[in-house]
């Protein structure tokens, strides 16, 4: 859907700093050029301002800016450009010593700063949290869902420890959008055991936009958006690369990933990157026993290449994700009796030792993505970008039992197969600044998709077409930044299924508008506040429309409703941030009201099947509210020693039925104490940290809605240590050690579907080695 929205960021800095001591009058100035790092083109209409003052200017059509009449002192220079990340840099215009120079009086204090900005499409007035650098390194080897858990307000919904789906502010699956390298990820998101088909090693940045961000990314982003962003291609750079090796004791899992990248000698304007990952793990161990058939086997690779010349650029990207995940065999149940027996037993009936072998049940998923992106920067400041992407998602699920009939069993076909084919197109125009003050973008996005499924009937085949158009404008003045946007989407959905051996088709049309409005205010160098209100809507998906059968994982009979209409959300999110050298505090509050929220409502009467009576749930609509607070504090109370504390609080409520909602993550509090040694001989950035995660018991659940009450609160300890060895100018080795669940604590998590069957994962020590060479 989107474009290649990440651009290199950066700041080249011409240190032609000249300050003249003999004149302390307010005659200093700063000047420079603002450029797009990717194309090198000047950016017209960028706002360059000095935070905390009323000084702010726009760049001209050559990207130039100049701020005059400054008194000597320390300033924070900030560049704000629509569609780019904000850039901040502290400058010293203090009295200098270059008394020998005899320049014109007005050029006495001069700083020439060239700003090269990184493009982003993230809304500026919504909280954006990014994992990159060291924070991202510490998550290496884990799945995407697990990697994001360190961000406050983000949790995960799990099926055992190998299938993990990100949850933002209590919302997940079709309500959270994942933008993989600028393309909207399209898999079978509706399923609770369908994890995102993305290799996190592709990315050098993982970002989460919390709150409804539907206008830019697609109307269904009710909960938030996850951006998986690789680094910009290394245009005209020498060969470089990295090799990552990660080993985990639990599951005896090994992960190897490597990247090789560079430009092409003699061909100006080219860049390429190749990357691959192999992962192999065996049975997971809880503190007291192994879980049978919980191995994983994953092979992923990606290749990217691009060319850019003057304002023109083209990028190609291909990635393949291929995973085979064993599903704990003790989680297979035929009837309620089976489930109640396991619950009463307190631990699984199936006993196991360690094994790498993956038997039934398992899932085998491949995801292929091919993307092309073309852009052109016009001389006058207009920019046009077109992205086309094809995704093929192939999901095969094998049940525990092979068919009784030998000839059918011999085929060893999966009991469920889904083939989802998606073509997305995005055409985006960044218009040139209007009157030098307002910048914005207009876009059209389309999605065409078809789904083929074979096996046990679950969801119908469908064709889906979606077209959306949006328009976003941003206005920056002094310390204020305003943004507003609107979007309109139209979607058609045709479904085909077999009912009693007769083909039935249904047709649906959905259309709706959405909007966003927000403001950011920078009070001082350190203090800023953001407020955003947005609407989003989501059409019911095929499983909500047509489910009709027993969900064996949940021991529930789930029935869809083809008369469901779209749900609509009104989301308000406010945050305030104080950031200084020693202390960073960020507090955000949100209120997400979802009208006609689609959920599974328990029915009075159970439904009778040949495997007995199952509790009966029907997809129904209600009104729901999600209120919460995310807080994070980092305080360097002694030199090089920092304490970090993150709190996530969420209260979800069904306002129409005056009841709580099921499957809402419990409140949590994450604390970390970290000591760093910047340098010790050849070792750099040495650190040691101790952390604790406390997760409360989810007390807010509807009465009599579950076979088992939510598990008790738990507290897990972890330790981490690491550092970097500089082998040579161009080679470095990063080493990290960590132990999760240090005391092998027995716990179960409310958001883990396997909490009925077994304890959660036990102690897990890991060793990470990263060798970087070249650049």
């Amino acid at each position: 859907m989107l474009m290649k929205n990440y651009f290199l960021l950066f700041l080249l800095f011409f240190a032609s700093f000249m300050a003249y001591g003999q004149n302390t009058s307010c005659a200093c100035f700063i000047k420079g050029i603002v450029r797009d790092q990717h194309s090198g083109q000047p950016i017209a209409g960028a706002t360059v301002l000095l935070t905390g003052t009323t000084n702010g200017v726009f760049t001209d059509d050559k990207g130039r800016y100049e701020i005059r009449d400054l008194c000597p002192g320390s300033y924070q220079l900030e560049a704000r450009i629509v569609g780019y990340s904000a850039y901040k840099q502290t400058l010293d215009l203090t009295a200098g010593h270059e008394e020998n120079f005899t320049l014109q009086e007005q050029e006495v204090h001069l700083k020439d700063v060239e700003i090269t900005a990184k493009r982003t499409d993230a809304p500026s007035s919504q909280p954006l949290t990014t994992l990159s650098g060291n924070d991202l390194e510490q998550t290496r080897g884990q799945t995407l869902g697990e990697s994001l858990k360190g961000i406050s307000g983000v949790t995960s919904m799990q099926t055992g420890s190998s299938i993990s789906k990100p949850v933002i502010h209590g919302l997940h699956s079709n309500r959270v959008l994942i933008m993989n390298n600028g393309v909207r990820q399209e898999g079978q998101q509706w399923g609770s055991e369908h994890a995102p088909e993305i290799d996190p090693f592709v990315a050098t940045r993982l970002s989460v936009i919390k709150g409804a961000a539907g206008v830019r990314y697609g109307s269904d982003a009710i909960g938030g958006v996850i951006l998986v962003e690789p680094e910009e291609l290394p245009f005209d750079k020498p060969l470089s690369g990295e090799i990552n090796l990660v080993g985990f004791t639990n599951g005896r899992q090994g992960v190897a990933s490597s990247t090789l990248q560079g430009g092409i000698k003699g061909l100006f304007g080219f860049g390429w990157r190749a990357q691959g990952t192999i992962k192999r793990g065996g049975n997971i161990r809880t503190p007291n026993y192994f879980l049978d058939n919980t191995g994983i086997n994953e092979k992923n690779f990606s290749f990217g290449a691009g060319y850019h010349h003057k304002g023109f650029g083209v990028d190609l990207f291909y990635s393949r994700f291929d995973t085979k995940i064993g599903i704990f065999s003790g989680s297979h149940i035929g009837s309620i009796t089976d489930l109640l027996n396991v619950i009463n037993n307190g631990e699984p009936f199936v006993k196991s030792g360690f094994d790498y072998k993956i038997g039934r049940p398992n899932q085998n998923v491949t995801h292929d993505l091919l993307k092309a992106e073309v852009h052109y920067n016009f001389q006058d400041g207009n920019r046009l970008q077109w992205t086309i992407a094809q995704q093929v998602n192939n999901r095969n699920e094998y049940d525990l039992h092979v068919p009784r009939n030998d000839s059918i069993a011999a085929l060893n076909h999966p009991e469920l197969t889904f083939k989802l084919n998606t073509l997305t197109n995005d055409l985006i125009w960044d218009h040139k600044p209007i009157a030098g003050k307002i910048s914005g973008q207009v876009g059209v996005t389309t999605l065409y998709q078809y789904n083929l499924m074979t096996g046990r009937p679950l969801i119908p085949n469908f064709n889906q077409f979606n077209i959306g158009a949006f328009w976003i404008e941003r206005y920056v003045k002094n310390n204020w930044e305003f943004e507003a946007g609107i979007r309109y989407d139209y979607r058609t959905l045709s479904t085909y299924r077999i009912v009693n051996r007769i083909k039935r088709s249904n047709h649906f049309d959905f259309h709706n508008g959405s909007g966003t409005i927000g403001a950011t205010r920078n009070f001082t160098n350190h203090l800023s506040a953001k407020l955003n209100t947005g609407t989003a809507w989501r059409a019911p998906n095929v499983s909500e429309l047509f489910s009709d059968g027993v969900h064996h994982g949940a021991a529930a009979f789930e029935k869809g409703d083809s008369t469901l209409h779209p749900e609509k959300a009104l989301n308000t999110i406010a945050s305030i941030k104080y950031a200084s050298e020693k202390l960073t505090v960020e507090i955000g509050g949100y209120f997400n009201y979802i009208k006609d929220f689609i959920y599974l409502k328990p029915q009075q009467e159970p439904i009778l099947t040949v495997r007995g009576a199952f509790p009966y749930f029907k997809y129904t609509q209600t009104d729901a509210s999600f209120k919460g607070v995310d807080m994070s504090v980092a305080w360097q109370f002694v030199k090089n020693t920092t304490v970090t504390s993150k709190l996530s609080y969420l209260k979800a409520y069904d306002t129409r039925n005056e009841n709580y909602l099921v499957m809402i993550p419990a409140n949590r509090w994450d604390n970390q104490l970290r000591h760093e040694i910047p340098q010790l001989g050849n070792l750099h950035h040495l650190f040691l940290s101790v952390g604790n995660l406390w997760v409360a018991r989810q007390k807010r659940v509807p009465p009599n809605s579950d076979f088992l009450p939510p598990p008790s609160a738990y507290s897990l300890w972890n330790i981490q240590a690491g550092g970097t060895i500089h082998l040579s100018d161009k080679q470095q080795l990063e080493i990290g050690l960590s132990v999760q669940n240090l005391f092998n604590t027995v716990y179960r998590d409310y958001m883990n579907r396997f909490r009925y069957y077994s304890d959660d994962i036990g102690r897990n020590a890991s060793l990470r080695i990263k060798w970087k060479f070249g650049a």
Partner: protein
Amino acid sequence: MNRKLTWILLFGVATLFTQCKDSGDEVEADDENELITSVTLTFTEVGTGTVTTFAYKDPDGDGGNAPTKFDTISLKANTSYTLTPAFLDESKTPVDDITAEINEKADEHLLVYTPSPATLLTYTYGDKDEDGYPIGLKGTAKTAQAGIGKLKVQLRHQPDTKNGTPAPGSDDVNIDFNLIVK
């Protein structure tokens, strides 16, 4: 550059409205998926040879229409019966005989008959698989005094784990017939 751009744009606009394939052409009934749509219990009175059958039928499987037949088992007090169950998948043409498949894979299956109250009826297995464990496709049910209760019929699927007890594996059938002994 402008001509190149025009071509790119034209191609871009064209692909915005491209449709690829119609998934409606490819929808077909699945014949590999095994269902059990009917469970029939045949009670043959020892001595007289009088045959009575009682059935559970849900021809379209889970969901869809409700079960079309769910008989109450009615037996005489203090009488011995031979009990033979039959399982069919009537959603397929021709009808799939699951009983035969259970018999072939007897070492992976166990039928469990549980009356409640337990005093209503006593079941004795009359068959064994190759490992010497009971199957339950043949057996004797002996009723006691008159009474009302339930008879739970379970087909336990126990590949590689069958040990003669109901505990391993999972249910392929688990239904409670009403039972009248008079």
